[in-house]
């Protein structure tokens, strides 16, 4: 987990928006704008008043330096913040100063000068309930403001803002020197005597470690600011407020430091957010009507780095930022028993597609998916991951790699070979015919093409089981070496991406590039029948593989398709929802993602990953695999959906894999089918209706599993009986899962009919020990 610390520390989520960084007061413009949007004028005024101290003076002094910083300045025009601020002064009803209920503090601060900077500093410190004394010639408040603003404007503002505060005003001709205030026991002094005023030696002391004009003189710390140090207008006001905070920090920490009143931002705004709408102009001259102000507020982008929120499905689905997700993962993977600690990310960890998208779209390259994979690994190592989240696919992997389905052979007669076809276990499961056809086409071009049927190990990687993943990769590497280290040809972009990453020495290419070569299988010949407009759906694993992406497009055109664009998918190439296998841990998430992808275009899609094809079809999308268009093309005028055959069920997918192996062995090795497992002749026939088959498929329950339970009940007699319905019920644990069946004998010795199949994850324990006697049944 620690290797992600620096990476996540670079996150820009909390960076200030451009306007706020340029604003002398660093006002939270997005917050301000949000309140205006809602017509909450009092609240908007409060935001403005808290930022500026003296809102009327600020509105008169500020020349909106935020404007040029606004990214809309280069487009339709910067947000009219100055007009919005004035609207706030116009429309807020309650503009009374807030009275802060803070306990009084004993520390004493002197402010020399009652210009706008000194008063601003005094105001901040008064609000924190320090004891503040202002030294000014005469009792004249406002300093330079007398020369530039109407007195009633600023005098009223000063009076209003100090309404709940008390400070002592000393009428002095001049403060004779530092000793004068040191001797009076002040903890800090703020010197804001105006341009050319007395600096008490502070300007010469400028810099040093503290970073600005300040020094410590005995017990008393001295700071200079305002026009004395060159700040003018709004900057003098803002600087005074800033010094109030600086002095407060000094009094709390006793560390002399003078940070500049500057803010920088590393903010990066996603370009997709920019618009060209022009500013709303006030029809009534220089002040907005209420509705005009709200319309302008709606134009603001509320700048925020949020590429993750825009593009990463997990952030979108959970409404969480990567930093928050990081904290939740850190808490969840902390070693320890979960009774005593929170595990907020347990399900979230399993609801990611691991498609490395965040790193791709994020300006700081935050690797959210990398962290999530690491989190899964940590949970696996600690044996805290619920087994059920990945159990189905790990068993599926076992089957694909087992004797019934796995195969790795050079073709008959070839001792070694120059290339090998690795179709990926999912294509052979869903469309064994396509694997056969593609292999035949590859063999026709190159008779020494080996065939390599098995799983690439992705389920183990996605389950966070590093050991098992490494073992799968090692087997694959060894088998590839035994074949003579051939060029590996892939149909599945995910297998290909995984091997490129994990077995980098293995040369690889996609079959789509092979087929689309100038002399390739589909390059010659005239274009196929016109099929109308389609869009190619690129899988996340092909994000960086321009060659494969282009080849599939060439093949689609050859197959007679006109290609429309999937602009966003082509740009950010997101997962179809299958990757990382979230479907058991978080089915709502998997469906959410697939539906989003399906909704990007009205056009039917062409996929070249069978998992994408299946996920999109299940989300109701018209979608064909490119190999279907090439090797099993539906009639040109058939609508895609009705043309496509029904997706194979989980049961059929296993049978297809075994059947594919048998067929290929028979075809290319002249070997007889390995004898199918002998069916028990005495085993009863079991009938399963269509609806139940569909439900079992949705529940990922294999017919073989249901059959095994029925046979178990029949063999052991361990079952319950319902005299009213004539049905039997019983269960058996297979792997971790407990499977239940309800069935009924059909009349006339016609076998059995399956009525219900269901499963649960929890285990029934101690069932076979009853009244202290062990029952003779092996569940």
């Amino acid at each position, binding site marked *: 987990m620690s290797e992600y610390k620096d990476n996540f520390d670079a996150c820009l989520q909390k960076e200030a928006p451009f306007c706020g960084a340029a604003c002398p007061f660093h006002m939270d413009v997005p917050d301000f704008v949000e309140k205006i949007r809602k017509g909450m004028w009092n609240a908007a005024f409060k935001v403005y008043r808290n930022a500026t101290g003296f809102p009327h003076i600020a509105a008169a002094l500020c020349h909106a330096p935020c404007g040029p910083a606004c990214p809309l300045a280069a487009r339709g025009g910067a947000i009219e913040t100055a007009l919005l601020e004035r609207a706030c002064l116009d429309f807020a009803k309650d503009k009374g100063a807030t009275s802060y209920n803070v306990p009084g503090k004993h520390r004493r601060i002197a402010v020399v000068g009652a210009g706008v900077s000194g008063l601003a500093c005094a105001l901040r410190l008064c609000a924190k309930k320090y004891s503040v004394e202002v030294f000014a010639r005469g009792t004249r408040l406002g300093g330079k403001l007398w020369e530039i603003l109407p007195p009633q404007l600023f005098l009223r503002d000063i009076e209003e803002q100090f309404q709940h505060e008390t400070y002592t005003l000393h009428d002095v001709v001049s403060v004779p020197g530092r000793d004068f205030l040191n001797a009076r026991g002040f903890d800090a002094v703020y010197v804001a005597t105006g341009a050319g005023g007395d600096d008490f030696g502070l300007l010469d002391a400028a810099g040093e470690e503290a970073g600005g004009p300040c020094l410590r003189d005995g017990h008393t710390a001295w700071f200079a600011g305002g026009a004395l140090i060159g700040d003018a207008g709004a900057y003098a006001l803002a600087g005074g407020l800033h010094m109030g905070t600086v002095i407060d920090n000094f009094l709390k920490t006793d560390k002399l430091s003078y940070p500049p009143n500057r803010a920088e931002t590393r903010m990066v705004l996603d370009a997709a957010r920019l618009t060209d709408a022009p500013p709303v102009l006030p029809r009534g001259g220089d002040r907005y009507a209420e509705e005009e102000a709200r319309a302008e507020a709606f134009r603001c982008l509320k700048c925020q780095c949020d590429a993750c929120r825009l593009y990463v499905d997990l952030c979108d689905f959970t409404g969480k930022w990567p930093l928050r997700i990081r904290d939740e993962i850190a808490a969840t993977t902390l070693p320890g028993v*979960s*009774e005593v600690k929170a*595990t907020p990310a*347990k*399900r979230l960890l399993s609801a990611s597609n691991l498609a490395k998208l965040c790193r791709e779209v994020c300006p700081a390259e935050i690797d959210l998916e990398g962290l999530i994979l690491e989190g899964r690994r940590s949970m696996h190592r600690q044996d805290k991951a*619920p*087994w*059920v*989240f990945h159990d189905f696919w790990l068993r599926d992997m076992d089957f694909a790699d087992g004797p019934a389905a796995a195969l790795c052979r050079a073709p008959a007669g070839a001792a070694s070979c120059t290339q090998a076809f690795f179709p990926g276990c999912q294509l052979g499961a869903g469309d064994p015919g396509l694997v056969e056809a593609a292999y035949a086409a590859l063999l026709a071009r190159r008779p020494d093409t080996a065939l390599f049927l098995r799983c690439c190990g992705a389920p183990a990687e996605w389950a966070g089981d590093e050991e098992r993943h490494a073992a799968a990769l090692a087997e694959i590497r060894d088998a590839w070496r035994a074949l003579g280290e051939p060029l590996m040809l892939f149909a599945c972009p995910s297998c290909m991406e995984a091997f490129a990453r994990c077995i980098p020495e293995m040369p690889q290419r996609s079959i789509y590039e092979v087929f689309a070569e100038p002399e390739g299988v589909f390059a010659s010949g005239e274009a196929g029948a016109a099929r109308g407009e389609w869009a190619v759906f690129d899988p996340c694993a092909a994000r960086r593989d321009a060659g494969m992406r282009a080849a599939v497009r060439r093949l689609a055109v050859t197959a007679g398709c006109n290609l429309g664009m999937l602009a966003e998918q082509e740009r950010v190439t997101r997962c179809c929802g299958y990757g990382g296998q979230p479907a058991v*841990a978080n089915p709502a998430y998997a469906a959410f993602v697939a539906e989003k992808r399906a909704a990007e275009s009205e056009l039917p899609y062409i996929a070249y990953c069978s998992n994408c094809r299946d996920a999109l079809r299940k989300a109701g999308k018209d979608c064909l695999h490119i190999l279907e268009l090439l090797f099993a093309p539906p009639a040109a005028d058939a609508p895609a959906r009705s043309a496509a055959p029904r997706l194979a069920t989980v049961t059929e997918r296993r049978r297809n894999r075994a059947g594919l192996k048998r067929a290929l062995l028979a075809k290319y090795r002249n070997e007889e089918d390995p004898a199918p497992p002998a069916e028990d002749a005495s085993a009863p026939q079991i009938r399963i209706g269509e609806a139940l088959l569909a439900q079992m498929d949705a529940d990922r329950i294999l017919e073989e599993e249901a059959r095994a339970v029925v046979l178990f009940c029949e063999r052991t*007699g*361990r*079952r*319950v*009986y*319902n*005299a*009213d*319905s004539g*049905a*039997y*019920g019983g*269960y058996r644990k297979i792997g971790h899962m407990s499977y*239940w069946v*309800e069935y009924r004998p059909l009349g006339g010795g016609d076998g059995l009919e399956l*009525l*219900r199949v*269901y*499963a*649960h*994850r*929890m*285990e*029934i*324990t*101690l*069932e*076979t*020990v*009853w*009244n202290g006697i062990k*029952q003779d049944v092996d569940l």
Partner: protein
Amino acid sequence: MESSKTWICDRCKVEMQLMETQFSYLKRSFRHKALRCPACGQVYIPEELARGRMREVEKTLEDK
């Protein structure tokens, strides 16, 4: 066909009854009433229970 109708243990030919039953999931054990044969202890979980209350408990434990 409703599973609320009377189920009997096919071996002992006695009616199933709600009795304490022990379950475990993700390293946690707990007891709950389920239909059992009073003679041999065989448990019967109807579909509604498996898909309903049991699934809820499973989900809660998966999140813990």
